[in-house]
């Protein structure tokens, strides 16, 4: 950590004046340096040719440091993954902070370092950014927005319009891990667990699938907020087909299952990071699964369902005991239940 004059971030650091400038020069620019990084606040300029993918997300997670990571790597991975879900190879990110007065400089630094390494792992450059500071009580330590640009993979043909009955639904890893890891440290709900968030960049795994299977990958989605259930409902709605899933096949860690039992939550509605859903042509599904399991992030991948012509726009789950039920979208926040 560089020697900075202040222990905490103050309003002055967001004023656009000399404090902002010092913070950027000593911290951000130095750490994230790359030839394109815009050091004068207006924007970055680079050569890139389309088709391009463009995505944005703001990260408001609490706590900002959680088992397995922090908001910084989450912010990088999140946008990298959204680009990957578009079938793109992520290239450039923007990075924008909204910091609440009083954030310890050491925590800001730790977040910056996490951002740096996450960007390196994903192979993206952070080329432009922004820093705002809001008064104490008008923010929540730090919010981060990342936006990203990627180049669509030449073989990618990702769209709900390519989905057909018979397509297999693959999930790349354990479901609900991230959401439960976060909940484990929330006031009033906290429990002990070794569980850590699985936040990670998925772009390399996705690229290797696209390299090999190209247009046989019909859709990619990362089931973040709202969980698997919500994303599957969106897909079913968008393609006007039904989706059947098998509860038995859905990978869930023991700790996650335990926490869900205790709090009365359904893992299908819990937020995820670090996993994705793929709808792939039935004839390559097993090969895709094999390939995915060879990647770092896909060791627990599983085929959990398929697209069906019945019950269009609905997701139907066959429970562990063989009963069927409709899986709706999440309503409101998932709150722990007494009953």
């Amino acid at each position, binding site marked *: 950590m560089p020697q900075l004059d202040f222990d905490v971030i103050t309003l002055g650091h967001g004023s656009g004046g000399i404090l902002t400038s010092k913070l950027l020069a000593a911290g951000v620019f130095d750490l994230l340096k790359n030839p394109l990084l815009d050091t004068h606040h207006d924007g970055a300029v680079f050569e890139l040719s389309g088709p391009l993918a463009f995505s944005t997300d703001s990260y408001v997670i609490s706590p900002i440091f959680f088992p397995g990571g922090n908001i910084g790597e989450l912010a990088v991975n999140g946008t990298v993954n959204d680009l990957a879900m578009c079938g793109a190879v992520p290239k450039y990110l923007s990075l924008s902070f909204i910091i609440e007065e009083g954030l310890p400089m050491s925590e800001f630094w730790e977040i910056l370092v996490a951002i740096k390494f996450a960007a390196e792992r994903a192979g993206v450059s952070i080329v432009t950014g922004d820093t705002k500071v809001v008064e104490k009580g008008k923010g929540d330590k730090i919010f981060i927005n990342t936006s990203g640009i990627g180049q669509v993979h030449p073989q990618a043909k990702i769209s709900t319009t390519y989905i057909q009955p018979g397509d297999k639904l693959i999930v790349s890893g354990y479901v609900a891990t991230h959401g439960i890891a976060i909940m484990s440290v929330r006031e*009033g709900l906290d429990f002990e667990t070794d569980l850590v968030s699985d936040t990670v960049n998925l772009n390399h795994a996705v690229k290797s699938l696209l390299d090999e299977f190209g247009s046989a990958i019909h859709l990619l989605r990362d089931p973040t907020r709202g969980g698997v259930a919500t994303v599957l409902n969106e897909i079913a709605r968008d393609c006007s087909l039904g989706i059947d899933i098998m509860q038995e096949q859905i990978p869930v860690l023991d700790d996650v299952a335990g926490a869900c039992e205790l709090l009365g939550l359904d893992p299908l509605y819990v937020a995820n990071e670090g996993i994705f859903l793929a709808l792939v042509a039935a004839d390559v599904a097993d090969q895709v699964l094999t390939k995915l399991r060879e990647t770092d992030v896909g060791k627990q991948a599983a085929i959990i369902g398929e697209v069906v012509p019945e019950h269009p726009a609905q997701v139907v789950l066959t429970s562990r*005991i063989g009963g069927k*039920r409709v899986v709706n979208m999440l*309503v409101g926040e998932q709150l722990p239940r007494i*009953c």
Partner: protein
Amino acid sequence: MKFLTEYRDPEVVESYVGELHKITTRPWTIMEVCGGQTHSLVKNGLLDLLPENVRMVHGPGCPVCVTPVHLIDKAVYLAEEKGVIMCSFGDMIRVPGSRKSLLEAKAGGADVRILYSPLEAVKIAQQHPDREVVFFAVGFETTAPANALSVVHAQRLGLTNYSILASHVLVPPAIDAVMNDEDVRIQGFLAAGHVCTIMGISEYYGLVEKHKIPMVVTGFEPVDLLQGILMTVRQLEAGRATLENQYSRVVPAEGNPEAQRVIQQVFEVTDREWRGIGTIPHSGLEVRPELAAFDANRKFSVSIPKVPECVDCIAGQVLKGIKKPYECSQFGKKCTPENPLGAPMVSSEGACAAYFHFSGVGL
């Protein structure tokens, strides 16, 4: 997880389902009293596996759903106007009062906290000696010991800033009230396993005899429910009406004497209004007068006008099993889990919400 996983075994489920299909010869209507059982039935797709002749009716057993509107209004008032830290369970804070829910009060800036346990609320009171902390203590007999314990803990710690807003209801009077309604056509009951864990089963003998109806104390896992239904149908098919205990692994006949003692220590029985049903004599618990200092009802003087319930909502009939949620004119239309008109649409335990969530509208 031991004692859970084995009760979800597909083979055991299959053998129970098979037996149930084998012995069922006529249509039977059975009410599962408890919302937790409703939840399990729909979540596990059990309804899909039952014989067509076995019709399950969802009872009034969701404590957040039957909490009267004016108590929610009071909780909102305390949070908004008295500046208390209002704590409760996650499903309680979404239930609409006449103006708004606690979640909406929170959206408006009130300090409303979602807790796993009332004992956490006592800790919050300890951490904030300068603030009043109120736990909105809803629940059936199962939750009463925990809510009572929170008062005992607060007393032990000498806290003067902790109180509970009790909305405690009792199951046996509710079953009696359901059966006394002449429109009700229930032929058997699954009694709520966790309530009986606390209170034991003796209270139910009188009900079985009075209403000549089979009753089986039942657990919550798929195999538990199937066994409970099977035991009920066996009685019905045989023309018997007795009390049986499917859930003996956690329900001793005498219940939990320690828990009964702490309930006695903190609460006393009172008449109680049930949302959607009306007042049922001796069907609730309130804080004993000698513990008035821990009773938010007595500690804070709040006079809020009583507001009539929504006229379109047929929650009362749904809770009594007279109508199914989809027979309500508003179900899935004006009334959805995002914007519930009545209590049973609120908690995912609620009969209307359970149908909405897991069955899909129109399925």
